């Protein structure tokens, strides 16, 4: 973890309520070591920081994608390029790309999609051929489908109302996968993660990224603890990514 004064390069909506923000720092300053980590953003006038997962990064930039859901993200949305943004960077454990095998399966639901993008880029650069399932409520809410395709991933979309791709949930889209997966990674709302745990082949190993209301975001306050097979873990520090096999549903 480190504290950084980022400069906002870009901050704009990409759907009705999803925004993309690109932040600049000096080379390597962000300290990100794995996809699936997050930054914790200070917003003027609010006491707690706002944890937002990292979508992708370069040496000097960090891209985050956030959903406008409340006071904090409504304020964040108004921040103009050029403005400084204080954040604690490189928080959480992140995904382990090395475990992917040749045909990893990536499953994202709604605002759980962004951290899978940086993961997907890493996997493709390492020579894997990922299949990506993206789940949304409706076509209007779909984002980043083309970006994943541009990376070279095979992308399947599921929408609850059937307006794009498979009608139904990401679990319904699982049927359309051609080759069996070697490993899976997922991020999304907890009911989706739970449904996936039931739907995916029992022997398939994978990692699931969780969300919880956090205090500090770096393991000090114990605000976001959960019980696992290996004892209590903090979503912010020991997570947000947990092993499928350790999760107690």
């Amino acid at each position, binding site marked *: *973890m480190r504290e950084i004064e980022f400069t906002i390069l870009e901050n704009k909506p990409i759907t009705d309520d999803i925004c993309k923000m690109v932040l600049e720092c000096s080379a390597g300053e962000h300290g990100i070591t794995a996809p699936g980590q997050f930054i914790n953003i200070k917003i003027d006038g609010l*006491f707690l920081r706002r944890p937002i997962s990292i979508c992708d990064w370069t040496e000097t930039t960090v891209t985050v994608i956030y959903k406008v859901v409340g006071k904090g993200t409504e304020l964040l949305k108004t921040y103009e390029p050029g403005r400084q943004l204080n954040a*604690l960077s490189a928080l959480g454990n992140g995904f382990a790309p090395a475990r992917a095998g040749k045909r990893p399966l990536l499953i994202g639901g709604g605002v759980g999609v962004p951290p899978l993008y940086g993961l997907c880029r890493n996997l493709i650069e390492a020579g894997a051929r990922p299949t990506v399932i993206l789940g949304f409520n409706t076509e209007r809410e779909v984002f980043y489908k083309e970006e994943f395709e541009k990376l070279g991933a095979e992308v399947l979309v599921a929408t609850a109302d059937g307006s794009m791709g498979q009608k139904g949930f990401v679990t319904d889209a699982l049927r359309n996968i051609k080759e069996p997966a070697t490993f899976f990674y997922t991020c999304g709302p907890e009911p989706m993660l739970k449904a996936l745990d039931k739907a995916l082949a029992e022997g398939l190993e994978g990692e699931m990224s969780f969300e919880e*209301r956090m*205090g*500090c975001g770096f*393991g*000090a*306050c114990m605000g*976001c603890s959960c019980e696992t097979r290996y004892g209590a873990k903090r979503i912010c520090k020991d997570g947000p990514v947990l092993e499928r096999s350790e999760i107690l549903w």
Partner: protein
Amino acid sequence: MVETKTNMLQTELCGITLDNPVMAASGTFGYGREFAELYDINCLGSFSFKGTTLEPRFGNPTPRIAECEAGLINSIGLQNPGVEKVIEEELPHLATIFDKKVMANIGGFSVEEYAQVAQRLDLCDQIGWIEVNISCPNVRHGGIAFGTDPDAAASVIRAVKDAVRKPVIAKLSPNVTDITKMAIACENAGADGISLVNTLLGMRIDLKTKKPVIANKMGGFSGSAIFPAALRMVYQVYDAVKIPVVGIGGIATAEQVIEMMLAGACAVQIGAANLVDPYVCRNVIRDLPEVMRKYGIAELKDIIGGAHNG
């Protein structure tokens, strides 16, 4: 390390010299690990480690955190690995990152349990003080139950005092009508110091779900919003007892440290601010000499209780 002339910041708590009055408050600093990754925590006067109980505790269901104007509500419920694991794992690790005496914060669900935990920790050289949490608002049949009744508080303090040699500090709850009665009861029971305040009982309701944000419905409110209330109580308690007072509640700046000391605190603890600015303790210590110069203060220990007349 933060470079300061230690003599100008030096203070004392129950016979133990502190290089400076700034401590991190229990429950916001764990056992030091997370912060030691960020900076050398030896710059602190000391810190009070995570409230420790006899048995390991997972704590309360989540959500445990709710944001407020200028603060937050927490309902952790004394999550901790239990006293044995603290002694076997946390203290040896702490010895590698912190050379000074640490304050052991203890919780319990019966008078006997408090005494047992205290007795175990009293044998550890690294520990300077035993801070008895009789003010946790987030557990039933313990904590605050002892912190709102002077007789119950006294019985806990007496039992802990009988079990240990180290100085015992009673950490008081602000959720009482007259905090001086609690402080006097603890002093009469043998407490060597008083620390105050723990969190104020608070609540938030989510307008979308129309239900409490916190799973446990209520929790402890802390953060900059509570500073004036905490300062007032420190001022009152300083007048009411002869034992030293540690000021806690909403502190995040060097100016507020000085204000707390003028009210009567010989040392302070910084809590909620650590969670949003992990460097706050280090920065406050760094800022103190400059702020002292600005207000014509040569040595911090001379200003303790300075706001009281006579």
